[in-house]
């Protein structure tokens, strides 16, 4: 709970957070904002989503509703329905073809350094970074989450989740607000920490 409020209150993030989280009728992921805005947002943060704690706060706050991060969002429309209910499969009845076309495609491949197989995850099914890490942990059953990394306790190696964004840059997972990450992530790579020299963590550990 506190983590989210911190994010929203920070002045550099306020506008972006608001824009990101406001309910509008535009395409998700801020794709209309233009490339230059995106660049600025990538480097402008002093705080990041904290993956190691506060996750339960994030989830209860969201109440399972992926679309609504901010309680005081832009939609002030009359007749706004009451608080969102839990989502139901297949309702409203819109074909997944249409849903996928109207939003950016959020299926991404996950590669693990040293492993021959690739898996795929649908980022939209997670409400935040912690859920994503949990899913990865379950998918590659040798991992345990520790800090923001995935550790193979048996082998003693740890992996840092990184991702390739729409511009082709490799970034640390967790650096940007979740929704922005979902919109810009093209693929994930669990990089052995020994190899992660080019990707410096942005926030102090």
């Amino acid at each position, binding site marked *: 709970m506190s983590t989210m409020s911190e994010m929203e209150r920070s002045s550099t993030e306020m506008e972006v957070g608001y824009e990101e989280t406001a309910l509008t009728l535009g395409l998700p992921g801020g794709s209309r904002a233009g*490339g230059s805005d995106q660049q600025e947002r990538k480097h402008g943060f002093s705080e990041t989503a904290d993956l190691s704690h506060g996750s339960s706060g994030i989830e209860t706050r969201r109440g399972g509703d992926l679309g609504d991060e901010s309680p005081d969002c832009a939609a002030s*429309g009359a007749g706004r329905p009451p608080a969102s*209910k839990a989502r139901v499969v297949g309702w409203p*009845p819109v074909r*997944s073809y249409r849903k996928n076309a109207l939003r950016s*495609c959020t299926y991404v491949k996950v590669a693990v350094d040293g492993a021959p197989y690739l898996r795929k995850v649908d980022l939209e099914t997670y409400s935040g970074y912690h859920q994503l890490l949990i899913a990865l942990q379950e998918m590659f059953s040798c991992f345990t989450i520790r800090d923001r990394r995935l550790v193979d306790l048996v082998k003693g190696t740890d992996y840092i989740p990184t991702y390739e964004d729409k511009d082709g840059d490799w970034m640390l997972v967790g650096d940007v607000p979740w929704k922005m990450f979902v919109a810009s992530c093209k693929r994930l790579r669990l990089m052995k920490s020994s190899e992660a020299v080019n990707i410096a963590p942005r926030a102090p550990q």
Partner: protein
Amino acid sequence: MREERSDMSEDEDGGGGSAKSRGGGGAPPPFSDQVLENVLENVLQFLSSRGDRNAASLVCRSWYRAEAQTRRELFIGNCYAVSPRRATERFRRVRAVVLKGKPRFADFGLIPNNWGAHFHPWVCAMAAAYPWLEKICLKRMSVADGDLSLLAYSFPNFKELSLICCEGFSTAGLAVIAEKCRHLRVLDLIEDYLEDDEDEMSDWMSRFPETTTSLESLVFDCVGSAVNFEALEALVTRSPALRRLRVNHHVSVEQLRRLMALAPQLTHLGTGSFGSAAAAIPQGGNNVVDLVNTFAASKSLVCLSGFRDVAPQYLPAIYPVCANLTSLNFSFADISAEELNPVIRHCHNLQNFWVLDTVRDEGLQAVAATCKDLRELRVFPVDPTEDSEVSVSDVGLVAISEGCRKLRSILYFCQQMTNAAVVTMSKNCQDLVVFRLCIMGRHRPDHVTEEPMDEGFGAIVMNCKKLRRLSVSGLLTDKAFAYIGKYGKLVRTLSVAFAGNSDLALRYVLEGCTKLQKLEIRDSPFGDSALLAGLHHYYNMRFLWMSSCKLSVRGCNEVAQRLPHLVVEVIRDRDEDDDGEFVEKLYMYRSLAGPRTDAPPFVKIL
């Protein structure tokens, strides 16, 4: 859009499937009868409607045989209703096959993967039986690349392939089709899900014959991967018969312009992204002028779609063709009423219009003001969730009903509605055949009176005497279903979700709707006794789907026992253990083939 696919929707015969069995075969008839049969064949070959053909085949054995020999188009509404072998043995001279697989609720994720509807056994049977096959149209089937390959190699005269809402194949399969089907006229891929690994894609566009092709229609807007544009350009250049071209969103507006310049004879155009490629020419006025000129030169265009990433400054380019358009699909275009207005103002001849609710009630009012000939309207939600903003409402619906009196078909997603608006539509639009209203919030009442939506839907079935397809939503009591049962005498397809109070509702429908063919129900409190109330009717139906209702295994078993020609499938979600008495998903359908042998482990056939 589907204007050319009338046989894929709801106007099919009510009585019996196309493969109903009657005596058939047996010893060859005596000589004079044979002559008679030959004469009969010469007459029957002109019969095209399958309803008429089914009726003719029931007259007597002679007519049965003659009809079977002259049927050229085979329509199988449920691929599990008859076995491929039986169908191909009865109808021996088929040139075109239409095959439908999964129930419609599969589109919304209610059916686990690998449920079935495999094209494979069908293509194998047809490869052996119909060497002269020319057309195949599949809807909601599971199609593998190997099946496409077998198709391409088995039918030397193959001309038309349409795949609608199918899955399981990839660009590799398309490559074989392109290469081997030298007489291909139609390749229509509509809302399919292609299994493409980004690293292993096939350059299928380059595989078409290098000579002049017979292509008339090439639709690939659902293909997720980019195609080889140079190859596409070259293909269009050597396809003088091309009339319909729908490209995917990887084609930029600049590329589109080049294609259009090569094919000014196009009648149907899917515009792809209709936005600029990222690294393209800066957006100057010249681009728009060029585009306008190109559209002005496309004098035959009657149908426009695409607009996947539409850049608003390009929209005016389509003004020159608006007056000729009969069909416009803006349902992927995130545009406002202000952006729609200048376009729609010119579209006097529009009959089909698909749009996103981003245009709001105001946009719909503009449509109502101009499109007096509108037959079909579909309004889709840009944000398909239960609690998105209100954008279109009862106001838009009333406006449409007042302006577009000839409306036959409507699909309307909204967040709020009133009975009064629906009643108004029922009175203004007497030609309605399809009425599908989706109030996205579950159990939501009339937002003004707070009453259930019973009266609105009641008025629809009462006043719209031609109604054949109905989808209901919002807060509905048993009363709504009493109306439907009492007045919905022509209703063939009914879709129900989160509605009704008790078994009575379902009983009203099963007892009253004598022409009911397809019934799909989810999350409604209907139990075994209601299910059993339909025993007299299930053989007349294509299928019944019920999920998250109140059915038990005992009730479903009883149906299965009493109706041996009904296949009763109980489908579990994969992860659940056997829930014992409770039935989560029921799918049942009449069948001459008996229980299918390809059912996956999570399907139990009673």
